[in-house]
């Protein structure tokens, strides 16, 4: 019998020699797209998180390569247009992307090269899941992982509309939406995400969310001692916190890092569309249809009377059919 894997607390450990059973599965799903009243699991898994320390990143793209390799995607050969990003944007075949920003710090007068690994943030309150119309196409596990179930995806692009971070990409080939899975298949058997495993400087680390916050604290202290007084953790409240967090040297200006949103949240437009518009719209249409049907069944219809026919004859033929004479 196979042993059950334990939840990963790090990405650096090597896999066991013996195969192991997944430590979480469908039974640990807490939210399902387009599904009301999801039965809540009996247990709650420890919250996990990936921490990306932007100050330690050297922009080598090993994480991208590891991602492509593990997920077996094929982003194709790109085209050099004179920028470091490769490919130029996230694609259905590239779930993570190093974004390079050059910034001249007005205080120190130094040029800073800010490199942010972009990808799904695994929001605690996921906008994609809220917007999705297909039952079961997007799920969230109690450990915080937001995952797409491609069997149920219909390719409508509503997740793109809902996401506050502009992450999901729809494939032109199979018309399904793709994004980072936080390597849910690796995590399930006790391994950290492929990107974290591959990172040569350990700018990407992985573990329980509490551990990652504690680790971030140490890093922030270190950065502050080196003069980055605004260093801080990016774990935005507006989306209930995220399961991918950043250590930023300029936490006060997240926009510097390739337009990382300052205060991300699910857009009120999306909330209004999926909330009051849906409820009120259905109610109004239902009442109108039912009212029309009831009125049609019970009210006196507007019927043409004999008198109308007589008048029509008189008008058209210039005669009164009653006496057959001319008017």
């Amino acid at each position: 019998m196979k042993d059950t894997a334990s939840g990963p607390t790090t990405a650096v450990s090597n896999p066991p020699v013996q195969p192991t059973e997944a430590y979480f599965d469908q039974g640990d799903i807490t939210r399902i797209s387009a599904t009301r009243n999801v039965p809540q699991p009996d247990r709650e898994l420890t919250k996990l998180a990936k921490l990306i320390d932007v100050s330690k990143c050297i922009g080598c793209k090993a994480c991208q390569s590891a991602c492509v390799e593990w997920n077996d995607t094929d982003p194709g050969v790109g085209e050099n247009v004179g920028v470091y990003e490769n490919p130029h944007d996230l694609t259905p075949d590239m779930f993570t992307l190093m974004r390079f920003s050059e910034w001249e710090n007005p205080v120190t007068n130094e040029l800073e090269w800010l490199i942010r690994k972009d990808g799904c943030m695994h929001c605690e309150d996921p906008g994609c899941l809220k917007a999705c119309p297909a039952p079961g196409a997007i799920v969230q596990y109690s450990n915080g992982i937001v995952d797409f179930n491609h069997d149920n995806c219909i390719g409508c692009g509503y997740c793109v509309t809902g996401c506050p971070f502009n992450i999901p990409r729809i494939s032109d080939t199979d018309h399904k939406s793709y994004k980072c899975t936080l390597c849910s298949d690796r995590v399930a058997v006790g391994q950290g995400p492929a990107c974290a495993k591959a990172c040569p400087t350990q700018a990407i680390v992985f573990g329980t969310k509490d551990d990652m916050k504690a680790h971030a604290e140490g890093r922030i202290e270190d950065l502050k001692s080196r003069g980055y007084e605004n260093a801080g953790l990016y774990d935005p409240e507006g989306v209930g916190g995220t399961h991918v967090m950043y250590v930023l040297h300029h936490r006060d200006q997240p926009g510097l890092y390739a337009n990382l949103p300052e205060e991300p949240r699910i857009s009120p437009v999306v909330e209004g569309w999926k909330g009051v518009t849906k409820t009120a719209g259905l109610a109004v249409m239902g009442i109108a249809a039912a009212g029309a049907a009831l009125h049609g069944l019970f009210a006196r219809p507007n019927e043409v009377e004999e008198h109308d026919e007589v008048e029509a004859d008189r008008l058209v033929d210039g005669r009164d059919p009653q006496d057959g004479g001319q008017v």
Partner: protein
Amino acid sequence: MARPQYSEKGDHIASHEPVRVSRYRGFTRANHWVTAVCLIVLALSGLSLFDPALYFLTGLFGGGQTTRWLHPIVGVVLFVSFALMFVQLWRLNMPRREDAKWMARIGDVVKQNEDKLPELGKYNPGQKFVFWGMSGLIVVLILTGIAIWEQFFPGLVSIPVRRIAVLIHALAAVAIILVFIIHVYAAIWTRGTLRAMTRGTVTGGWAYRHHRKWLRELAARDNKGPAE
């Protein structure tokens, strides 16, 4: 001959005993029914993606993926079909002075006090409201629909614009379904109306009761026509 004021050139007295009046030629009727089928398909497929409780309606079209690609394509067909109908119908749907009087007496319309209502041309203000409501909403729906058409126009508008487009699309869809309900209900409540879109003709009595100016103009034209 001067352009008729209250009727289309093709409208005519189709028979005298009994009096039957031709209201829509075959092309217009076919055009109408193509549009109608499109609207029903669009409403059902759209509703299925509007609320999870109605997602089962995707089964009518062969599943979610099929519904997703079918809906916008049928939308384009409806737009073209409606545009053809618009060209044929817009002139007599322009508002006229007597419409205000009819609107002011909407209570008498419902109570069927026909003698208190002004004489009308081919369309009453209710029909004109449906016509212009459909026209305006279809334009809104096709524009916002293209903006959120992931398959062919993924990057046409920015994501914030797309959010607004999807909200407006949903609101306009609710509105057009309400207009559709009014349209179908009025056609059934006003007995004798449906045959205008099935057989193409209405009875003389129907024309006299509901569209007297239209009938008068056709009768006058009929009398002036070539000798029998």
